[in-house]
């Protein structure tokens, strides 16, 4: 049920879990834990719908490579960025959790098997259809992959009734996290402020920070500063290893044998390098998206190709006369970014209206990031060419070396990952395998900020799997108290 800000209980034993932030991670956890009978307080900083007074807290600076303004790269109200997400989902590959040959920092402290038990529940929660299994493309070093591509679920609508009616879940809007008080390795209270400048302090057995892939870092940096580093004494990696999925239109292909890739039947197909190819080419993961062209655009592409490859003209004419189906395709890609200490969220000098320093994103693509997309395209292009499946053309910016990344177009997926990295030791990251702050026995982080590496798949399914796993962990902890 909804409660007003003034109604938030300050009693010491009112809540089992206080969840801060009501986006994909926060709502998933609040609904799951309250359905299991735990007393949950869900504190959302925004309003029930979009409001400028809340959204303005998301303004911030970007330093480095071109990036989407932080203000427009996410939404700050009930439901979070699931109010405008695309619903495109796929789990990470098993090898995404391991050290990759090109960058050993990609290793997570857990295997994909730790998340697999939560796949179906997470898919149900997000209303995803479970897609077919990946298929290796023989002789290509590539596999055909699948995404869930249904209508994007708006979590605040899907769970409107639970948020309104549940007797074990209290949801408070306009409750903005301002500070965390810690004593002997336990967070004893979280302080919230509304837009009228009123404050409430909440006590709970467990706290979960679920404010998104930029705010989790920003808020912990701020709370840590205020607590004189009592919250996160080993803070060297706080805000660091921040990652995105660079996105771009990367070229075109003409497929003489579209059936070899399944494009005879489908308009959109997805490919990614297999693990061996990542190793032999010394690259990170990459998702290539082939969108079939219409007949007119295909004909134009045939003419473009023939200009550069006149010896193909005769064969193409014969094939066309025989009625052989040839498809042109536009290629788009989303690729894994190297986890780098240098890419980070930090606090700026400027404060938002609530008095919290704004975020500054320092973000740059590395040589490995550029290499990943170029080599992935060469892998596909060589397969098409050497097996007479087709020919591929790299976009101008990829064809020329050094690669000059596009300065406009998609740029990135608005997938904010890292900053509170999961790791084995507090020297290497901020949360442990259970998503718990190393120095606090009752404080957890939910969301893609805990990702140690990003693969190429959109992050929300994985972060909901992690959130559900955290629910099980908290359930065990709560059971041991009773």
């Amino acid at each position, binding site marked *: 049920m909804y409660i007003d800000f003034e109604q938030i209980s300050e009693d010491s034993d009112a809540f089992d879990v206080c969840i801060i932030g009501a986006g994909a991670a926060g709502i998933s956890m609040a609904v799951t834990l309250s359905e299991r009978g735990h007393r949950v307080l869900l504190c959302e900083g925004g309003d029930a719908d979009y409001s400028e007074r809340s959204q303005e807290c998301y303004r911030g600076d970007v330093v480095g*490579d*071109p990036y989407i303004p932080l203000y427009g790269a996410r939404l700050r109200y009930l439901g979070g960025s699931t109010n405008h997400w695309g619903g495109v989902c796929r789990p990470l590959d098993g090898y995404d959790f391991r050290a990759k040959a090109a960058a050993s920092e990609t290793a997570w402290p857990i295997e994909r098997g730790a998340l697999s038990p939560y796949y179906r529940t997470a898919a149900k929660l997000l209303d995803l259809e479970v897609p077919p299994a990946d298929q290796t493309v023989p002789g290509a070093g590539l596999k055909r992959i699948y995404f869930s591509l249904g209508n994007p679920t708006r979590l605040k609508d899907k769970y409107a009734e639970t948020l309104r009616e549940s007797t074990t879940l209290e949801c408070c809007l306009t409750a903005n996290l301002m500070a965390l008080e810690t004593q002997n390795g336990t967070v004893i209270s979280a302080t919230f402020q509304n837009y009228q400048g009123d404050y409430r302090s909440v006590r709970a057995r467990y706290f979960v920070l679920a404010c998104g892939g930029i705010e989790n870092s920003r808020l912990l940096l701020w709370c840590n500063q205020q607590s004189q580093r009592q919250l996160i004494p080993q803070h060297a990696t706080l805000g660091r290893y921040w990652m995105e999925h660079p996105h771009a239109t990367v070229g075109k292909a003409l497929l003489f044998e579209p059936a070899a890739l399944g494009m005879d039947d489908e308009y959109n197909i997805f490919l990614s390098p297999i693990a061996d190819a990542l190793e032999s080419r010394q690259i990170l993961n990459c998702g290539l998206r082939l969108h079939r062209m219409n007949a007119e655009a295909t004909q134009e592409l045939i003419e473009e190709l023939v200009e550069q490859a006149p010896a193909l003209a005769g064969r193409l004419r014969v094939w066309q006369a025989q009625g052989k189906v040839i498809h042109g395709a536009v290629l788009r890609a989303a690729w894994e970014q190297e986890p780098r200490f240098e890419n980070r969220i930090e606090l700026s000098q400027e404060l938002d209206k609530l008095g919290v320093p704004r975020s500054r994103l320092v973000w740059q693509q590395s040589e490995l990031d550029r*290499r990943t997309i*170029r080599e992935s395209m*060469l892998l596909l292009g060589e397969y098409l060419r050497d097996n007479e499946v087709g020919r591929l053309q790299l976009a101008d910016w990829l064809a020329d070396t050094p690669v000059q990344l596009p*300065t*406009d177009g998609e740029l990135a997926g608005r997938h904010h990952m890292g900053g509170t990295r999961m790791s084995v030791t507090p020297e290497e990251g901020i949360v442990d395998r259970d998503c718990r702050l190393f120095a606090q026995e009752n404080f957890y982080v939910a969301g893609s900020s805990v990702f140690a590496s990003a693969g190429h798949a959109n992050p929300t399914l994985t972060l909901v799997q992690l959130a559900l796993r955290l629910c099980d962990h908290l359930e065990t902890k709560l059971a041991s108290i009773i």
Partner: protein
Amino acid sequence: MSMDPTRRGLLRAATLAGIGAMVLPGTALLPVVQASATQRSPASAPVMVKGWLLKAGDR
């Protein structure tokens, strides 16, 4: 960089291909031949013309 502050502007951001540009990136990729010389046989060395990956015989 100025941004449309309305909700419609933000929702539109979800569907538009992209928004703005600010700085040109600096670092470079290894030239392809150098980067992959150890992995590939000379027979499959790419012939690239205007971005097209071709066989020598295509010309």
